[in-house]
C-alpha cells in the first residue's frame, strides 16, 4: 500500500489542487440569484410516517406566493422548489444535492427533521450554501464555529429546559424535582438544559425516570417518581405518554407542581385525554400565539395571519400549529432576505441571518423577539410561561430567556 512513488504523489497533489479549484468554482456566491429571481429550496416529508409535517412546507410555499404578489424581495421574485424525502436521510441527501447541483438554489430553507438535517449539514457547509432555519428543536444546529452555514430557528430543547430551571430557581427554591423523559436525544436535551439551568443546584433533581417509545405505559415510572418524594414533576414526553403521565399522577393522588414540555402542550391531544381536572395548574411554555386563544382575537398579527390563510392557503388547517409555524418561519426569512439587499449573495444572506436584533414577528407574543449574532445561531430562545386553568392556557409571569446570560 505504501508503494506510491514521488511522481504519483506529485500527480496526486496536482489533482487535489485541481479538485480544490473546482470546488471553489462550484461555490459561486451568487448561484441561484439573478437580477430578477432568487431560487429557494426546501425538503419536506410529503410521504411516509411524518407526512403530517408537510403542512409546514405548504404554508411556506403559500407565504412565498404572497411575497411574490407583493413584489418579491429586493426586487426579485422567489422561485420556491420543494422536494419530498419521506423523512429518510439517504433521500434527503439525494434531494439536497438535486437542489444545490441541479436546480442550483441559493439556499435551502426550513428542511424538516433531526436525522435528515444532520445528513446534509456537512454537505451544505462544504458547498457554502445556507441551510437556514431547519425545522427541528435539536440543539446541535446552532454551532457557527463548525457549521457557519447552518442555522436553527425555534427555541431548542436545551433552551427550554433552562427556562423551566430559571422559573423554579426563582419561584420554588426548595423544589425537589422528579423528571420523566424519553430516552433519546430529545429527552436528554431537555434534561441537560434543566441541569445546566440549575447549575450548582442540580442536586434539586431527586429522581430521573427514562422511558422508551416502545413502552406501553409510563405507570411504573410515575409510581417511582411519586415514591421519590418529589414536589415538582417535569414531564418530558411526547403527547401520548405526556397524557398518560398526567392522568397517572392524578390517579396516584400525587399533586406536585407540573411542568410540561412544549412539544406536548396541545390541549386537544394531551390535556383533554388526560382529563381537564387532572391537568389544572400544569405549567408549560410557548413562543407563538395560539390561534384558538380568544385573547388574540383582535391582535394585529393574528389578523394578518388570518387574512393570509384565507387568501393563500384556504384549505390549510387554522387549528394546526404547523400553519402558524410555517407563517412565522417564512416571515423570518423574508426579514433576513430584505436585510441582505445590499449584499445579495450567499454570505450576505448568512450575515443578515446572523445579525437580527430584537426582531418582532406577527405571531410571537409581546416580548419574544428574534435575536442572533455571529456567535449566536439560535434565533428564538425566549418563551412565555403559561398555566392551564382547566379550560385553556393562560399566560403568566414575564417572558423567560433560555439564552446563556451574556
Amino acid at each position: 500500500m505504501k508503494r506510491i512513488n514521488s511522481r504519483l504523489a506529485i500527480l496526486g497533489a496536482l489533482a487535489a489542487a485541481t479538485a480544490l479549484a473546482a470546488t471553489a468554482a462550484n461555490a459561486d456566491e451568487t448561484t441561484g440569484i439573478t437580477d430578477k429571481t432568487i431560487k429557494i429550496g426546501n425538503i419536506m416529508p410529503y410521504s411516509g410516517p411524518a407526512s403530517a409535517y408537510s403542512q409546514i412546507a405548504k404554508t411556506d410555499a403559500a407565504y412565498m406566493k404572497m411575497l411574490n404578489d407583493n413584489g418579491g424581495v429586493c426586487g426579485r421574485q422567489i422561485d420556491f422548489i420543494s422536494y419530498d424525502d419521506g423523512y429518510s436521510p439517504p433521500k434527503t441527501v439525494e434531494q439536497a444535492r438535486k437542489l444545490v447541483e441541479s436546480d442550483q438554489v441559493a439556499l435551502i430553507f426550513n428542511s424538516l427533521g433531526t436525522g435528515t438535517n444532520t445528513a446534509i449539514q456537512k454537505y451544505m457547509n462544504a458547498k457554502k450554501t445556507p441551510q437556514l432555519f431547519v425545522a427541528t428543536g435539536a440543539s446541535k444546529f446552532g454551532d457557527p464555529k463548525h457549521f457557519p452555514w447552518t442555522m436553527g430557528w425555534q427555541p431548542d430543547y436545551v433552551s427550554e429546559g433552562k427556562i423551566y430551571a430559571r422559573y423554579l430557581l426563582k419561584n420554588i427554591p426548595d423544589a425537589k424535582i422528579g423528571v420523566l423523559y424519553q430516552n433519546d436525544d430529545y429527552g436528554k436535551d431537555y434534561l441537560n438544559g434543566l441541569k445546566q439551568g440549575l447549575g450548582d443546584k442540580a442536586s434539586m433533581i431527586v429522581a430521573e425516570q427514562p422511558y422508551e417509545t416502545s413502552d406501553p405505559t409510563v405507570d411504573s415510572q410515575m409510581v417511582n417518581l411519586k415514591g421519590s418524594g418529589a414536589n415538582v414533576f417535569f414531564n418530558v414526553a411526547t403527547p401520548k405518554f405526556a397524557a398518560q403521565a398526567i392522568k397517572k399522577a392524578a390517579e396516584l393522588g400525587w399533586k406536585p407542581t407540573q411542568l410540561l414540555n412544549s412539544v406536548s402542550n396541545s390541549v386537544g391531544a394531551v390535556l383533554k385525554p388526560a382529563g381537564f381536572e387532572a391537568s389544572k395548574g400544569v405549567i408549560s411554555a410557548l413562543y407563538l400565539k395560539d390561534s384558538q386563544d380568544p385573547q388574540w382575537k383582535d391582535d394585529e398579527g393574528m389578523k394578518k395571519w388570518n387574512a393570509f390563510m384565507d387568501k393563500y392557503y384556504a384549505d390549510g388547517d387554522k387549528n394546526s400549529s404547523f400553519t402558524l409555524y410555517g407563517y412565522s418561519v417564512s416571515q423570518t426569512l423574508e426579514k433576513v432576505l430584505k436585510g441582505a439587499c445590499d449584499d445579495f449573495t450567499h454570505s450576505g444572506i448568512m450575515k443578515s441571518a446572523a445579525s437580527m436584533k430584537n426582531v418582532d414577528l406577527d405571531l410571537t407574543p409581546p416580548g419574544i423577539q428574534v435575536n442572533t449574532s455571529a456567535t449566536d445561531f439560535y434565533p428564538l430562545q425566549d418563551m412565555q410561561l403559561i398555566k392551564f386553568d382547566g379550560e385553556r392556557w393562560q399566560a403568566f409571569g414575564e417572558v423567560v430567556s433560555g439564552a446563556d446570560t451574556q
Partner: protein
Amino acid sequence: MSAREEISVSAAKAPASRFGWRNWAGIGVVLVLAVLPLFLANFTIFQLTMMLIYAIAILGLNLLTGINGQFSLGHGAFYAIGAYTAAILMEDAGLAYGWTLPAAGIVCFLSGFLFGLPALRLEGIYLALATFGLAVAMPQFLKLSVIEPWTGGVQGIVITKPDAPFGLPLSQDQWLYYFTLVVGLLLYWFAVNLVSSRSGRALMAIRDNPLAARAMGVNNALYKSLAFGVSAAFTGIAGALGAIVVQFVAPDSFTFFLSVALFVGLVVGGVGWLPGALVGGAFVVFIPNVAEHFNKALAGAVYGVILILLIYLMPTGAGGLVRKVADFIGRRMKSRPDR
C-alpha cells in the same frame, strides 16, 4: 436508463461456449455504465451510484428468493447492519473504507446465517412475516442505549467521504461510482458462478422440490441457512457502500420501507433473473422521483399506479419481458422491431 440496456448483463449467464447476443449486450451495458459518469453531473452520478448499490442489495435478495425460494421482507435490516458496520469501523476504528466492505460482508453473513437457522422451520408467508419483524425491530434496536456509544443513538454517525486514491483525476462522486461498479461486477461474477455451480443447483433443487432435493442427498438445512448468509452478506456490502456514499447512517435511514423497496425492486427486476437487479435498482431510485414530478401531494398514489401497471403489464418483471421478447425474435428469426 432504458430497459433494453439492462437486459444484457445476463451475458455472463449464458454458456461460455456460445458467445451470443446476450454476451455482447452484457459487455455493452458494462461499457455504457463505465463511460456514463464522464458525461454526467456529480449529482446524477450520485444517483447512479445509489442505483448500483440498491442493485447489489437486490442481487443478494434474488439469490435467496429467486434461486433458493425463501422469502424475506427483512433485508433492510441486513442493509442496516452492513451500513453500521462500515460507519463504526471507519469513524471509531479509523479503518480505511475499502476494508469495511469485507468486514460488513462477514458480519452480515454471520447474522444472516444465524437468523436463517431458526427460520428453517418457517415456510413461505410465515418466513416473510418473521423477516418483516426483523425489519420493523431494527430501527428500534439501533437506538438502544446499551450500544449507543457506538451507534450514536438517534443522532447516527456522520462519515467522511473518501477522495480518489493515487491522484486519479476523478471527483469524489466519480471515484465512488467506479468503486461501486467494480465491487458490483465482482459480486455479480461471484453470484453467477455460485448459481451455475454444484451448490447453485442444490439451492435451486430445494426451491423446486425440497423433498426430492433431500432424497438426492442435499443437506437442506445447511444450504438454506447458507443461502440466507450469502444473501445477507451481499445486502450488507451494499449497505456499507450506501453508508460511504451517503456519508451518514441513522436509524431513520433503515425503516421497514427500505425492506419493502428492495422487495419491490426484486419483483420488478424479475425474480430469479440476476441481471434484473439493475432494473430493480433503477426502479427504487428513479421511480419515486418520477412520481413526485407528476404530483407532489399524490406522489404515493402515482407511485402505486406505476407499480400496478408494471406488474399488470409484465407480471414476471423485466426478466420475463426479456425472455418473451427473446423468444418472439427467436421464433420469427427475422429480427423485426420489438413488440
